[in-house]
């Protein structure tokens, strides 16, 4: 394969995104901005719904557990368990045992998204220096005030780190949603016979770009919500987080 041919492959893939062409069998028109737009929209809708539900469930639980400082083992090992179950197996399991369609796929993605968010919310809240909390109580803060004024602001960057990880995972995993009849960007990838290698490559490019954009965007949010004092103090990098088995890196614990 010459270099030119490689460049040609990618060039033709970009073209595929913007202009429709005949399918491999020559029976239908495939690709083009309209189809990719539709697929992207479904892809994003599925991802957003799943992530929103996961956040709504995992953040309160994680913060609560972190605040009371119990069930550390559970909160931390849930991400380890989550990582050990391959997403393809999870989706296949749902398809085989639960059913197909938007709601079922969304449910899988919620399950996938919960562990990193829950763990980070737990770690973020419980990592707050006990002396800080103690002095806050000593000055007369109520439990609620301790949580909302001390623990939450300090935990926020870590929580958003978890959301960022899960967002990337969800967007990536939504690619295999077509196995359960949800028409995401995985359509051109899975239906090789219709879309061909060029269609696969085109979809791969779009998925990769969306994921990177999503990561960068939430990374920006993460920086914005980090209190300035923490930015200044944190330069050696996440020292407090390492207390928990040293297993929780600063961001994404799961590629997808």
């Amino acid at each position, binding site marked *: 394969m010459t270099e030119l041919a490689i460049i040609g492959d990618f060039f033709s893939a970009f073209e595929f995104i913007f202009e429709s062409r005949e399918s491999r069998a020559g029976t239908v028109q495939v690709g083009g901005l309209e189809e990719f737009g539709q697929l992207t929209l479904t892809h994003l809708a599925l991802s957003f719904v799943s992530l929103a539900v996961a956040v709504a469930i995992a953040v309160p639980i994680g913060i609560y557990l972190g605040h009371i400082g119990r069930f550390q083992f559970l909160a931390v090992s849930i991400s380890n368990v989550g990582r050990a*179950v391959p997403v393809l197996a999870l989706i296949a399991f749902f398809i085989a045992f639960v059913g197909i369609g938007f709601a079922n796929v969304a449910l899988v993605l919620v399950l996938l998204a919960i562990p990193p968010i829950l763990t980070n919310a737990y770690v973020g809240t419980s990592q707050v220096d006990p002396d800080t909390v103690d002095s806050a109580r000593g000055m007369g803060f109520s439990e609620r005030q301790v949580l909302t004024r001390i623990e939450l602001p300090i935990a926020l960057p870590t929580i958003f780190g978890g959301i960022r990880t899960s967002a990337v995972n969800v967007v990536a995993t939504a690619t295999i949603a077509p196995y359960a009849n949800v028409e995401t960007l995985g359509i051109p990838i899975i239906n090789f016979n219709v879309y061909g290698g060029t269609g696969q490559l085109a979809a791969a490019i779009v998925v990769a770009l969306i994921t990177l954009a999503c990561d960068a965007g939430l990374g920006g949010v993460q920086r914005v919500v980090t209190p300035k004092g923490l930015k200044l103090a944190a330069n050696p990098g996440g020292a407090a987080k390492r207390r928990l088995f040293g297993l929780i890196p600063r961001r994404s614990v799961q*590629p997808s």
Partner: protein
Amino acid sequence: MSAKIPLAQVPEGFFTERDPDDLDCVAQGGFCPSWILENFDRYVDPFFQHVYLTGVSLAIGFVIAFALGLLAHRKRWLTGPLTAVTSILFTIPSIALFLLLLPLTGRGNTTAIIALVAYTQLIIFRNVANGLRQVPSDIVDASEGMGLTPMQTLLRVEVPMALPEILAGLRIAASTTVGLATLAFFAGAGGLGAEIESQINFKSNVVVAGGLAVALAAALDLAVLGLQRALMPWRRAVAA
């Protein structure tokens, strides 16, 4: 029994007692224990292909990431750029990366392994670099003060002391790689993922192939844990 039928023409399974429910079960794509027992053979090769992809990727990935970690330890300014590059690799969805590599390296193990190696980099690199950075400076000071050369200090003091962190990285990388290798069929590299995908509606198939992947991840996790215990007797001593 008048007519003699040559054995070779007898359909397979003719002489074995078949539970009618069982046939039904397979036809409906259900969870059928007897089918699993009979067909377990077909998962052996994909399983070992999966082990191969995971093992080779982890080995290569560990060597590269470990070297990068040492490099970043020596040249601190490299830490930022190396983290940035490995983070981007890490963020690209594996399906996309498998497909993006196809025009460059073609279908097969090579493409799958390149992608899987890429995913191990951030995890192991960051844990190696963090682990080395966490070694207390007074211990390094004492080591150099006693006349260990910088290389001796690295190999005899810093790396052993960073082992918990390094092996924690390896553990995460191992289970992650098992999971990602289920998608390696997109690169034409087979593995358990190909089995899952081939009959994604058949419960028996999904349970066996998926279960094997989970079991492999768990086994690798335990193996690294065992390695951790074997390599770090001082940790147990502290706990005792």
